[in-house]
């Protein structure tokens, strides 16, 4: 459960057993071909995997590079979140749990959790900050449509970090029947690496797809946005043993790797935005999904090892990237995903580079935000 000196399991004694139980169940399930087959089947029939690898022909021509887009935006519910959530829900079912507990920020993970719960006939309790509930009323309704209970969180900044705290508090009281369904490569062990394993389907598919698409089989660059960092972790997992340069792109206002310092939050030791007194500060990004003041511990480790590089882009660059991708490729990417595109658009890559960009989600949810800004 450690990535160098990061990771770990910083949870109350009351949750140690539950985390262990999840870890043991996951180890056992992940080694069981039946479980993996069942999950792969669901990802194929329900989610639409494999998602395509789209050559961004017009944008490539403009940049003089070869850009390949891994299309998680086409996954059921609109982002990569579902890969992980189906895995955890299937595991919960296998463990005999009857409920899922989850936190959500903008609502994407909450919708994915509610979706998986509906599919398996599990209950779902989703904690969501009151401010996010106001901003994302449609996602709240969607979760309720799917049968989930959405609990407003009125503490702190009333956003994602507070919802996460509240969800963990709640879990303590319901560990017997409920499984915590974590939305990113965060939280206590085994979550960071379990979520990465559930998301590695992105990287594994992309690796195979690149092999048929690129002469060199492996791209020069593999680029993904990083909030907590689950789509990046999943993507990188497929390329960590190749010469591809791995680039995680953070929001300038929510850059755990770039601006954070070592700390412990929500069960894991990692890099978090905090003031000089060790109080966690709020992240600010146009992309709600990157609005978390930390980053997954494995990313810190990959950076410390020099295996991955973490960069930031500004909100303005992100808006420009969304618009440009829409006009050249007919794809409206999520603001989160557009961070990866924005970094590539900076033009710092050598001409002729081959670049894999994970489009973690679709931009439908962001249209009204963009409309106000553009």
């Amino acid at each position, binding site marked *: 459960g450690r990535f160098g000196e990061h990771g770990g399991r910083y949870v109350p004694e*009351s949750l140690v*057993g539950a985390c262990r139980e999840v870890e043991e169940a996951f180890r056992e399930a992940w080694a069981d071909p039946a479980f993996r087959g069942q999950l792969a089947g669901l990802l194929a029939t329900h989610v639409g995997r494999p998602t395509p690898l789209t050559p961004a022909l017009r944008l490539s021509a403009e940049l003089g590079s070869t850009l390949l887009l891994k299309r998680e935006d086409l996954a059921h519910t609109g982002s990569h979140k579902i890969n992980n959530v189906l895995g955890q829900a299937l595991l919960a079912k296998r463990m005999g749990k009857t409920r899922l507990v989850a936190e959500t920020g903008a609502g994407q993970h909450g919708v994915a959790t509610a979706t998986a719960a509906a599919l398996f006939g599990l209950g779902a309790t989703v904690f969501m900050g009151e401010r996010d509930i106001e901003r994302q009323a449609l996602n709240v309704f969607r979760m309720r449509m799917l049968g989930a209970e959405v609990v407003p969180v009125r503490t702190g900044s009333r956003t994602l970090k507070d919802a996460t705290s509240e969800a963990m*508090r709640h879990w*303590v009281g319901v560990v017997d029947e409920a499984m915590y369904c974590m939305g990113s490569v965060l939280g206590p062990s085994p979550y960071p690496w379990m979520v990465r394993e559930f998301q590695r389907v992105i990287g594994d598919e992309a690796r195979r797809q690149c092999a048929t698409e690129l002469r060199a089989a492996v791209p020069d660059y593999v680029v993904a946005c990083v909030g907590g960092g689950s789509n990046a972790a999943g993507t990188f997992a497929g390329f960590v043993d190749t010469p591809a340069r791995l680039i995680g792109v953070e929001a300038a206002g929510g850059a755990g790797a770039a601006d954070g310092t070592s*700390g*412990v*939050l929500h069960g894991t030791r990692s890099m978090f935005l905090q003031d000089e007194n*060790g109080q966690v500060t709020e992240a600010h990004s146009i992309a709600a999904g990157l609005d978390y003041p930390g980053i997954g511990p494995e990313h810190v480790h990959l950076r410390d090892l020099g295996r991955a590089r973490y960069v930031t882009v500004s909100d303005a660059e992100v808006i420009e990237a969304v618009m440009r991708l829409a006009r050249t490729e007919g794809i409206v990417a999520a603001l989160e995903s557009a961070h990866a595109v924005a970094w590539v658009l900076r033009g710092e890559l050598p001409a002729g580079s081959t670049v894999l960009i994970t489009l973690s989600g679709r931009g439908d949810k962001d249209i009204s935000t963009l409309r106000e800004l553009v």
Partner: protein
Amino acid sequence: MPYVTGGVTADWASYVHAFADAGAGLVEIGLPFSEPTLDGATIQEATAVALSRGATLRGVLAATPRCGVPLVASTYANLALRPGFCDRLAEAGFTGLIVPDLPLEESAELSEAARSRGIGLALLASPVTPDDRLAEIGRRSRGFVYAVSVMGTTGERTTLAAPARELAARLAPRTELPVLLGFGISTPAQAAAAARVADGVVVGAAVMRRLLDGAGPAEIGAYVGTMREAMSGG
């Protein structure tokens, strides 16, 4: 062991004195952290009030009074694992430390750092902790063992739950340290019940609720006195 959130009011230190005067054997002082993941509504509120008043680790420690009763700090791992934390704690006169999100497996380093400054890192035990692990906690804890009486967060509850009694009963033979029962204890009756199975109780949310509602040191000292009395009488 009554609890006060450091920095919650300008005169928070007076509450520490009042606890001591009321006969508390230990006093717990919360060092506010912005993400009180394990606290219930009352202590979350107290934490938010303290932080909004500009409370910092440095400031709270500087204002911590010496009152003749051993002081126990409680905070989260994010603060406790900062470099120099134990030095500063020792300077401020603390002899005990509770870090509720630092379970057994993650505690060794901090426990050693604390010990070398004369501070005992008390570990927590929970109703779902198995016996062998309870024994390990009992061995590795310092000062006392903090027995979490319920599966949940801090906060007042109406009765002392059966799990609390069972946990205390399982812990007692597995540690040489005193066992303090915490989470949810607010009435003299509960305190009395707790005293029958444990060596002491932690009264946190019940104190802070009164404090946030405007009760001064004297009034809260009287409440703590009532709790103490109930325990002795039990």
